[in-house]
């Protein structure tokens, strides 16, 4: 493995860079269009992700409004299906993944002592194709026959035989999203391999860098498989191939195998960087070193490797033979071992620490508790015989929203609160932040916890209507949903204030217990950092 021991000059990172060696920051829209600065691109990614979070959230509000009462009242079923589909696609590919890429852009160079990402020009491209992908996806909602209505998993034959012409738009937008995240992943890998500061050995790398490195490898391994799957859907639908059509010798179950071969590593793509973030925040506010750094690294790598051999646990009810169901059940349960190691390490880090509960720590602790709830319901779903009951019910919806909303999204919010003062140089509005945290925490549990109950009682997911006995729970769930949605406007207000640079100036270290290269540079972080690499001891 290459060790970045050679000293770099500013020119190294600035290759292909507009020549701004006088630290002059360009102004206006062209700054953002043509920027190759990792901090600018990180900001673009994060704002884009936040806007998509609100758009996808608005769709969730439509879903919850329809489900507020039994019966059909607000939207017709086809539009309801489009909402569940596009909500899922936007939240996965438009909110969570770009937010993590944005954090990687901001933080990875600062954490490893690099002046910028290794491939700044490509970095610009990988962001700027993303808005077009989502414009295409959103515009598909307005074509005749409506947008994609087959669920974000686009199972064949729903997406091949029974879908509208807008499927082509869906396929192209997924292609563009895939290209964007592959380019982002390549950039992260090359940066981490080639641009670490002297002395930054592999086992000294901050955990956010480690988890992102592993995530990036997952991305380049599975995003191309997703691209293949959507391409097969496209040719099956429009060009007469029969990959998934039994009449032509294909097999619709094969679609699920190919999709979940991508899909399961994908869910770890959305959670591994979160593990990294929490592993930064907990030690800071416990004022102790992270317990078990090396085991964290190995656990992350184990989770990533195991993610490739568990895909069929999404398919227990497809009629697999018993030995396959047993294999995928035990392989899935095995993942809870490295995940349990992580949760144990976070708790052990807090144990007898000098804890304080600043806003990032509040989100981090909520993450640990609520992600664990989501992990445990995942363990329940892994048990093959009971999965036959839980499959395609709201129990599954509760499970993956606990790991993705109170898992991935809470970790992103925690990260924003943790590093925002470093980015802006000013402390954010703590009162607003606490309101945001407590409103989100209460409403998110009201939103997702009762879903476990209605799911166990048999309420199917993706259906715009339900039988009467689920009415009370669904009203509570919808109220929780609206409250959670509204709570995010507190976050929006806080972010706007922060971008206007309101608030008290912060020190370079910002948080008393914070450690790492990014806390050694001035606050706010200058436009160019580490033009002369630091030496890590």
């Amino acid at each position, binding site marked *: 493995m290459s060790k970045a021991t050679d000293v770099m000059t500013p020119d*190294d990172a600035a*290759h292909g860079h507009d020549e701004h060696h006088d630290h002059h920051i360009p102004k206006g829209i062209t700054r953002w269009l043509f920027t190759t600065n990792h901090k600018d691109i990180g900001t673009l990614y994060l704002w884009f992700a936040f806007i998509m979070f609100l758009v996808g959230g608005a769709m969730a509000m439509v879903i919850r409004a329809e489900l507020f009462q039994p019966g059909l009242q607000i939207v017709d079923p086809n539009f309801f299906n489009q909402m569940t589909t596009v909500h899922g696609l936007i939240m996965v590919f438009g909110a969570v993944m770009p937010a993590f890429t944005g954090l990687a852009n901001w933080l990875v160079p600062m954490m490893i002592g690099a002046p910028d990402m290794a491939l700044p020009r490509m970095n610009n491209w990988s962001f700027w194709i993303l808005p077009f992908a989502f414009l295409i996806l959103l515009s598909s909602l307005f074509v005749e026959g409506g947008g994609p209505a087959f669920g974000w998993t686009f199972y064949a034959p729903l997406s091949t035989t029974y879908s509208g012409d807008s499927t082509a738009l869906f396929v192209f937008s997924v292609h563009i999203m895939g290209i964007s995240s*592959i380019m982002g992943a*390549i950039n992260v890998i*090359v940066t981490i391999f*080639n641009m670490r500061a002297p002395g930054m050995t592999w086992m000294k790398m901050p955990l956010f860098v480690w988890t992102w490195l592993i995530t990036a490898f997952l991305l380049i391994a599975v*995003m*191309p498989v997703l691209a293949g799957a959507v391409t097969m859907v496209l040719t099956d639908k429009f060009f007469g191939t029969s990959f998934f059509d039994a*009449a032509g010798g294909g097999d619709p179950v094969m679609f699920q195998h190919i999709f979940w071969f991508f899909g399961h590593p994908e869910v770890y793509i959305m959670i591994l960087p979160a593990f990294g973030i929490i592993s930064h925040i907990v030690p800071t506010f416990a004022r102790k070193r992270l317990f078990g750094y090396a085991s964290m690294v190995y656990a992350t790598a184990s989770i990533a490797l195991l993610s490739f051999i568990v895909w069929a646990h999404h398919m227990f009810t497809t*009629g697999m033979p018993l030995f396959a169901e047993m294999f995928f059940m035990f392989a899935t349960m095995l993942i809870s071992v490295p995940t349990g190691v992580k949760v144990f390490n976070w708790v052990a880090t807090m144990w007898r620490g000098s804890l304080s509960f600043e806003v990032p720590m509040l989100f981090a602790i909520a993450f640990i508790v609520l992600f664990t709830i989501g992990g445990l319901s995942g363990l329940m779903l892994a048990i093959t015989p009971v999965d036959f009951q839980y499959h395609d019910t709201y129990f599954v919806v509760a499970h993956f929203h606990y790991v993705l909303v109170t898992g991935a999204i809470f970790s992103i919010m925690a990260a924003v609160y943790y590093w925002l003062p470093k980015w802006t140089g000013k402390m954010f509005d703590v009162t607003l932040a606490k309101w945001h945290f407590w409103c989100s925490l209460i409403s998110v549990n009201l939103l997702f916890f009762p879903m476990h109950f209605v799911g166990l009682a048999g309420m199917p997911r993706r259906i715009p209507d339900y039988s009467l006995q689920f009415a009370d729970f669904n009203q509570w769930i919808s109220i929780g949903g609206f409250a959670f949605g509204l709570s995010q406007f507190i976050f929006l207000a806080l972010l706007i204030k922060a971008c206007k640079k309101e608030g008290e100036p912060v020190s370079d270290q910002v948080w008393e217990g914070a450690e790492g290269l990014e806390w050694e540079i001035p606050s706010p972080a200058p436009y160019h950092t580490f033009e002369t690499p630091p030496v890590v001891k």
Partner: protein
Amino acid sequence: MTQKNNQNRNMVLKLVVIVIGMFGFGFALVPLYDVFCDITGINGKTRNSAAAYEAVEIDESREITVEFITRTNTGMPWEFRAETKRVKVHPGELNTVSFYVRNPASGNIVAQAIPSVSPGLAALYLNKTECFCFNQQPLSAGQEAYMPMQFYVDPQLPEDIHYFTVQYTLYDVTARADDLDTQANPFMTQQPESGK
């Protein structure tokens, strides 16, 4: 600087190769899936060609119940039913069952039947010496036919399987049919009117 750039470029090239390789792997999964299922028989697909029946020893000590169910794919107007719903057979014994089809539509339709066996593992032991599912079946408007299927159960069938179900699904493949003349259907009976 150039050394750094070269290092980056080499790394990018390697990663792009991985990306292209994984894109190819996605498509390679298609034949891999077929081969894997062919060998293990776990997806319940039976073989697509006729098996030879040659001096198979009949195991009188075992009796296997084979059930036949039929369905037509959405949009496929044919009537399709198994004349024999259920048959008890000894492994190794040659049996013939018959399926009735009728095309009630006003146009010619070509059908393809796709078998699926449940439990899937039994598929490997269902040997068909003759089946309408090996070929596409054309029927002109109003025609009906009885289509035979001849099979024997391999005596190697695992001990714990006493009962399995064979399902045929009829698909309308007129749009992509091989250039078949409806008159060429070997199972076709007379037009209902003229056949009286």
